[in-house]
Every structure is written in C-alpha cells, then in structure tokens.
C-alpha cells in the first residue's frame, strides 16, 4: 500500500475553528426506510460513512495472541453534520436496526441526545425491535413516519396502535427527502427532549 499522506480530500468542508461541542442524534430504522435520505436532506455535508469493528473479547488482548478465538462484529453507519452555531455541532447518525447493531449501542451512542425512529408503514415490523431497544437503553425518541407516495395511508393514530407506542412518545409525518420536513422531525425530537428536561429539573 502506497503512502496516503498527500491525498487529502479537497472537497471537505471544515468546521468553524470555534466549534467546541459535538452533539449526537441517531436515526434508526429498518433497511431502505430512508435513514440516509433524511440525514442527507438536513446535513451541511454530503453524508459520510464509517464502521465500528468490535472484537467481542477485545478488552485486554494479550501478547500471546489469542486473537484467533475472537468473534468480530462490524457495524456500518452513515452520518451528516449540522453546525448549530459558532460552538455547537450536531452529528446525525443513520444506523441500522438489526440485532448486532444494538450490541454496540452503548459504545457508540452513549450520551446521545435522543433518537428518531423512522418508520415505513409497509414494513412496520422492522420498527418494533428498534423501539423496544431504545426503551431498554432509556434513550428518549420520537417516531417519524416516512410517507412514500404509494401504499395505503394509515393515520398516525393507527400506526401508534400498531406499534403499541405509549401516548407520551411524539409522532410526526415526514418526507425524508425534504429539508424542511427533516428539520421539523429534528425540532419535534428536541422539543420533546426539552420538555423531558424541564420536567426532570422541576423534580430536583
């Protein structure tokens, strides 16, 4: 492999030098539901992707090289970026809903502000697992229904019932392709988080 020192991507848009605080919001959902589309519609950069590779016994690998016995989990996710002001940068992660991903949730997304569960009404089964896992990890979330042009149009109430979603979880319709709609989804989530924070602070 040749040296890669000089091949810096020239199209990269750097952050403002005053950027201080990185924040995370995660978009979860089944395959093909539009996670990347949503990330792209609100991101100031073209979505990038990366992987986390985790070896199940990776903590404390020793010099004897017991490497062969380990199992490796690889999770790919893509992400976009929104500079909120001079100092705050929000990173938006699109992450798959399958099982091996949740294995890495704490490692990757601890400290996340909250999550958006993106739902496709034609494949709602995919959403149950994500909702169950978010509740398990006590990550606050909202449900956004990505409205595709085709298919029967179910009301949000019907979808709430189908997902057995508690009344306190906000739901919103969206078009993941639309920047304004994507913004509205994020605002719905952060409004919800703000309400939760106010309620929690009132009990202190």
């Amino acid at each position, binding site marked *: *492999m040749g040296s*890669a*020192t000089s091949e*810096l*991507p020239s*199209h*990269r848009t*750097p*952050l*403002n*030098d005053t*950027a*201080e*605080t*990185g*924040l*995370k919001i995660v978009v979860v959902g089944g395959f093909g539901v539009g996670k990347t589309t949503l990330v792209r519609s609100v991101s100031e950069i073209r979505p*990038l*992707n*990366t*992987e*986390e*590779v985790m*070896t199940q016994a*990776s*903590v404390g*690998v020793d010099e004897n090289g017991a490497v062969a016995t380990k199992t490796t989990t*690889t999770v*790919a996710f893509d*992400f976009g*970026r*929104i*500079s*909120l*002001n001079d100092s*705050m*940068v*929000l*990173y938006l*992660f699109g992450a798959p809903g399958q099982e091996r991903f949740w294995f890495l949730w*704490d490692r*990757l*997304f*601890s*400290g996340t*502000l909250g999550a958006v569960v993106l739902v496709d009404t034609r494949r709602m089964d995919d959403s149950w697992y994500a909702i169950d896992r978010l509740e398990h*990890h*006590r*990550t606050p979330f909202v449900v956004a229904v990505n409205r595709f042009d085709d298919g029967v149009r179910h009301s949000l109430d019907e979808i709430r019932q189908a997902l057995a979603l508690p009344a306190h979880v906000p739901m919103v319709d969206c078009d993941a392709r639309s920047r304004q709609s994507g*913004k509205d989804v*994020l*605002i719905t989530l*952060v*409004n919800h*988080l*703000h309400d*939760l*924070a*106010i309620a929690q*602070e009132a009990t202190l």
Partner: protein
Amino acid sequence: MTRKPVDTGDPDRLYTITGGRSRADDSFDLVTLIVSESGPVPGMQSEHARILELCRHPAAVVEIAAELGLPVTVVRILLGDLLDMGRITARHPRAAPSVAAMPDSALLQEVLHGLRNL
C-alpha cells in the same frame, strides 16, 4: 468519491497501523472534536500525518474515521498516540457520557434555536 466505505478487508493492515494494539482510548467519543497542535513532521507514520492535516480545523473522531477509511476503534488508538505526543487537543462533548443522562434544558434550548435558524 466512490471508494469502499471502510477498508476492513485486510486485518494485517490494521494490525500494522496500530502496531498490534487493539485497545482503544475510550475517552474519545464519536463526536469529540480533534484539533492539531502542530503539522506533520518527516518520518511520522502516514496515518498520524493525515490526521494532523485533517485536523488543522476541528474534526470529529467519526469524521476522521470516515476520511481515513479506517474503523473508529483504530482511529481512537491513533488519536491516543497523538494526544500522548502533545500533537492534538481534544474538545470533548459537554453532555456526560453516561447512558440515559438527560442534557440540561438550557443546552437543548440552544439546539432548538440552532435548528430553527437553519
């Protein structure tokens, strides 16, 4: 740019990059912002040099991983090296990295304000 998302096909290569280490510095969050304190110097490992180039302006750990085409764990190891050498500084997220810890309402208000102004 249509390169493969991440080059994980060759474990030997990753092993070489990290000098055989697999224990990453967990203090680097995905969104910890990294800033170079100096430019690359001759003879430096190429991945270290690329990170220093990339972080002339702040860049999140996850951005570095994506730009280098390396898994996040590998990048954390490389960043640990650079931090030990005093060549980078790390701006860690304000929110406590504990699971289910709620950020305060003032921070969320700032986020809301930023989103509405987009």
